[in-house]
């Protein structure tokens, strides 16, 4: 019987104009979203390639120059000596820490256009490294990029509402409902079949379009990790679709008319995808305000000025903090600019550290609060899950920054040690300069992060489904139901 109702619904839908228009619109939106994201990924990949190409060419030139200096055929430059560890570590031999797009990156741009995806790591301060980003069109940053996650989180619910706002109220208004209700078939089975068909069609459409778009964009699902992530991605999309269809069915079954159902569902969409996420953002900012970046910059400048006036004491203090770097140097070395530079940077960082710590801990508290409050809106949960699964979310960016911090410490240690031991870099030593390697979040961790949200979506859909179908099991004309009672 269920299959027969499905077939009937399919024939009815197929012969109506609205579903075709909606399907064409959704196809166009998905297509454009994938195209837009694929262009962004291609741009990122080409930028990363260019960064690596420039880096390897520069390091190769420095190595050659150093070989010539070592062979005595060339005099080292006073300001750009590749054998000087301070010059190499701060300017000449700097490397980039890259956050590469994942194989599934075309599915969600996320915040990747706001966050830096490569950082040039030097012996400079952490703040200097993080502040160096590409110049981007501010309008584009404000509006964000159009991607598939946006289509699914914000526009797909409207598609669901358009298909589901009159599941039963439409039958009431068309007058077919009384004949259906007089048949020996539970009404909940009719409603379930209507929802199932629409859910299957919309998900099938998104799945087919996404796979086609990914194939056209040249995405290869080469590893089991990517395949499982893709499956989880579609599981989240399915659960989100199920949530909206369950809501549509619940509202429609309790509405007196399809117009009332449409109004309530549109309100729910506005509330859950716009009002609640904005309110969460506002509440989080108000509850945990982040210290001003301008204050941080001014504090850094004040610390720089103070450090400049206390250079000699700084170096002594630096040695106190790093006794392993103390060599048999004489008093004259205290004037050594390169050593002072290290000491000065560290002192500035030490002074600015409380504010940076406060800034970062506030960001951390904000994110913790967002993580908790995300359950107020299926839209937030879904967006976070979709971005986390393809490595484009806050989690992945925090992981990247943590890796950059570690690399920065390693980098500074490598060059500081050689600077304070007064060891010149050799051509061979260049191959030992630290390299950054980013390890994406393991699948188990991503799945663990996504699981509560997925559970919430399925749980809510199940609750609404049970509640709605229980309502469908009640007598259909008990409250008037649009039929004349004579």
């Amino acid at each position: 019987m269920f299959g027969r109702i499905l077939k009937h619904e399919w024939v009815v839908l197929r012969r109506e104009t609205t579903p075709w228009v909606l399907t064409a619109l959704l196809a166009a939106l998905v297509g454009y979203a994938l195209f837009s994201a694929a262009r962004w990924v291609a741009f990122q990949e080409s930028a990363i390639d260019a960064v690596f190409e420039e880096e390897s060419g520069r390091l190769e030139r420095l190595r050659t120059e150093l070989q010539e200096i070592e062979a005595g055929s060339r005099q080292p430059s006073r300001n750009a000596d590749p054998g000087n560890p301070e010059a190499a570590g701060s300017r000449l031999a700097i490397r980039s820490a890259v956050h590469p797009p994942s194989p599934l990156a075309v599915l969600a741009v996320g915040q990747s256009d706001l966050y830096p995806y490569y950082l040039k790591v030097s012996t400079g301060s952490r703040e200097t490294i993080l502040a160096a980003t590409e110049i981007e069109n501010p309008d584009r940053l404000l509006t964000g990029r159009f991607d598939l996650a946006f289509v699914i989180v914000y526009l797909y619910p409207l598609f669901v509402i358009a298909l589901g706002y009159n599941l039963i109220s439409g039958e009431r208004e068309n007058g077919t409902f009384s004949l259906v209700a007089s048949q020996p078939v539970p009404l909940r089975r009719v409603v379930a079949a209507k929802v199932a068909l629409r859910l299957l069609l919309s998900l099938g459409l998104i799945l087919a379009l996404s796979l086609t778009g990914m194939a056209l964009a040249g995405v290869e699902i080469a590893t089991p990790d990517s395949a499982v992530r893709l499956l989880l991605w579609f599981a989240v999309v399915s659960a989100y679709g199920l949530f909206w269809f369950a809501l549509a069915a619940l509202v429609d079954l309790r509405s007196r008319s399809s117009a009332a159902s449409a109004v309530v569902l549109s309100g729910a969409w506005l509330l859950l995808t716009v009002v609640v996420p904005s309110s969460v953002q506002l509440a989080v900012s108000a509850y945990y305000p982040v210290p001003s970046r301008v204050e941080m910059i001014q504090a850094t400048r004040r610390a720089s000025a103070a450090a400049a006036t206390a250079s000699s004491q700084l170096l002594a203090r630096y040695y106190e903090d790093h006794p392993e770097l103390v060599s048999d140097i004489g008093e004259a070395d205290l004037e050594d600019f390169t050593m002072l530079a290290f000491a000065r940077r560290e002192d500035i960082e030490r002074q600015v550290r409380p504010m940076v710590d406060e800034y970062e801990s506030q960001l951390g508290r904000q994110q913790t609060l967002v993580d908790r409050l995300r359950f107020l809106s299926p839209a937030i949960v879904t967006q976070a899950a979709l971005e986390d699964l393809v490595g484009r979310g806050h989690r992945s960016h925090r992981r990247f920054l943590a890796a950059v911090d570690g690399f920065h410490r390693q980098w500074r240690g490598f060059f500081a040690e050689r600077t304070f031991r007064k060891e010149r870099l050799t051509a061979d030593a260049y191959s030992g300069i630290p390299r950054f390697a980013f390890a994406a979040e393991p699948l188990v961790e991503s799945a663990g992060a996504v699981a509560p949200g997925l559970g919430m979506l399925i749980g809510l859909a199940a609750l609404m489904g049970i509640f709605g179908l229980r309502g469908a099991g009640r007598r259909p004309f008990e409250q008037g139901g649009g039929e004349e009672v004579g």
Partner: protein
Amino acid sequence: MLKAKGLTKRYNGTVALDSLDLEIGPGEVFCLLGANGAGKTTTINLFLNFVEPTSGTATINGLDVTQHPIETKKSVAYIPEQVMLYRNLTGIENLEYFSALAGHTYPSLALLGFLDQAGLDQDAAARRMAVYSKGMRQKVGIAIAIAKKAGALLLDEPTSGLDPKASNEFSELLKKLSASGVAVLMATHDLFRAKETGTRVGIMKHGQLVAAHETKDLGHQDLERIYLEHMRD
């Protein structure tokens, strides 16, 4: 077959049906007459379990409709005043779907046979409902009821809006069905059709069955007189 015992329905204190006692056996056609709001449609809705009785019971083949809604719906076919069907489906497709909901699977030829019995020609059967007149839709509704092969038939003003020829054809069909043992409960305003088709008529007023007569004992003018007398009070 169809039995109401003390069947009562109140909507927020307003009595729509008041202690109806009624029994319609196989082959009987019981016509319910009465003004708008007298309780005719409420009676039918109660037999279909569309609304819950405030008190009393409605049974079909001895089964309480509130306790066995699916089982009892298998035994009863329903034709509303306005038969509205799926506009984008043809007559035969509508018939096929509603037959499937009723648990029957028929070949096309059988479906065309039901439509023919209801008086719809084959050309019309292949056209979409969007181009059907009310009379044609009503005929598809009748075909749906015939195809259900139910032992009871509930009709809510089925000839309302039909032309005299179609009404007459409908009466003939109803007679055939009752002759085959189908129990019929028909709500109608049409005194003539009630006298012609019914084996009994009942007059409802303010939710009560105030009179019931065998049609064979009444002339056309008797029925009209009795009806008007009750309406005048």
